[in-house]
């Protein structure tokens, strides 16, 4: 029986593990490699690692760091942060990542996704769609860590990325990030029902029930969350945690 993946998201800022609220107000959580070890012990399904300052500073996530994660991780992990070229994808994959996550470069040059997927196979290429309303209330896909709006709606961008050969989409609501108030299920469902590739939901999960709801009503293949897996509860005391697989029912 196939079941949705439950995926902790680790945000990195200068190689420290942090957590944001609405892409701002970063709080220091701890050492990322320690977190990877704990998720090994807890047998997490997969990990997402995102260097949130890489694109802003026009540099790649540290390959040495990815390698260190690769040495530790006994689960699949995907890596995003400032990836702009085939060589950089190769560097990240050779360091042990299963998949790379593209955002800024995919928004700037959608054809790059096609080039990358032809070279590395579509199951290696994940595109993260950061969705937010503009000041005029128009829903757009954003790049550069939520700093620049593209001309695409999240749905149009999702369809375009599928056409270009992306193997998976992460759909993230910037407004819900770190709020722990539940996924933007309408946004997520609008995309997952329009594409044939797997969709991973991100942004807003605060309880295990949020995961279950998003699977049931959002038609996703993966449920990713940051705060839920690094905080004990909404009071945000740091506690790396992961649900027991037996305790979850998605049916």
């Amino acid at each position: 029986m196939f079941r949705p993946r439950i995926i902790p998201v680790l945000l990195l800022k200068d190689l420290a593990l942090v957590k944001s609220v609405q892409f701002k107000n970063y709080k220091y959580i701890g050492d990322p490699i320690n977190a990877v070890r704990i998720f090994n012990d807890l047998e997490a399904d997969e990990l997402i690692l995102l260097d949130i300052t890489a694109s802003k500073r026009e540099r790649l996530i540290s390959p040495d760091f990815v390698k260190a994660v690769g040495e530790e991780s006994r689960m699949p992990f995907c890596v995003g942060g400032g990836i702009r070229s085939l060589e950089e994808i190769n560097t990240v994959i050779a360091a042990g990542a299963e998949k790379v996550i593209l955002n800024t470069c995919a928004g700037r040059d959608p054809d790059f996704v096609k080039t990358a997927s032809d070279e590395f196979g579509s199951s290696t290429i994940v595109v993260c769609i950061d969705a937010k309303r503009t000041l005029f209330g128009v829903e757009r896909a954003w790049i550069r860590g939520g700093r620049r709006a593209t001309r695409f709606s999240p749905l149009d961008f999702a369809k375009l990325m599928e056409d270009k050969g992306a193997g998976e989409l992460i759909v993230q609501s910037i407004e819900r990030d770190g709020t722990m108030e539940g996924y933007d299920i309408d946004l997520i469902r609008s995309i997952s029902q329009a594409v044939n590739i797997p969709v991973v939901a991100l942004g807003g999960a605060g309880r295990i029930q949020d995961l279950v709801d998003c699977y049931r009503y959002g038609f996703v293949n993966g449920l990713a969350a940051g705060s839920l897996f690094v905080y004990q509860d909404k009071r945000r005391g740091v506690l790396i945690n992961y649900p027991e697989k037996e305790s979850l029912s998605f049916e």
Partner: protein
Amino acid sequence: MARVHCQRKKTDEPSQIERRRHVVERRKISAIASSKTKGSAGEPRDSQLGFSMHIKTSSSARIIIVDYRTGNSNSIKRTLDQIGSRSIISSQIEDLTQADKIILPGVGHFAKAMANLKELDLLEALNEAVLIKRKTVLGICLGMELMAMRSQEGDTQGLQWLDAEAVRFKSSAAARHKVPHMGWNRIQIKKVSALMKGVENLSEFYFAHSYHLKIKDRSDLLNETEYGISFPSAVERNNIFGVQYHPEKSHRTGVRVLKNFIDM
């Protein structure tokens, strides 16, 4: 005194996670204790023991992980290192000749993988090692698909070690079964095999693929998995083994499969 205390607390701050780790460890210890009280028979399950102490191999077999410029050989190598196996990542014919066992990894495009094998002049050496010298070989993911007669991906001929074809999953946006098949799924063990020793039926493994094998000879079927349809998630024919999943990324159960392969 108070000041000292305060300072200590400060230096402890970054290791907050480390402390949580102890919580995890404690939970594990209690898991061991409870399994004992339940009186579970036979060999202890890997998950209830420290990982490294249980899973070391005593085999001295030399393993070559064939490097044909595609896929992620490093994570397989790392897992083999942890098990204590002697392995190298290489594309040299000489290493292939000297190796006792062969792992054919693979992520990426079928046609490209075949082209690379040809370009590296490895086809003949692989055929000789597997078909004539009958060295045990394990194909992983694309490495398994390559063993087929041909693939729909790039409409290319394969290594032709198995009477099988690699075909693409059919997908539809309305269904839950998106393509690629990406994530954790169960396997049904279809025959007794040394590769499955200690692996429970319906164990979960990590998959990431858009194509799957269609086999002609059902006796080759080792594992079967459901994803909209039933497809062979592992095959075995004499010295030839293939797994569609990634044992190197499937936690302890996956490590078990790789150890079984080394111990064979």
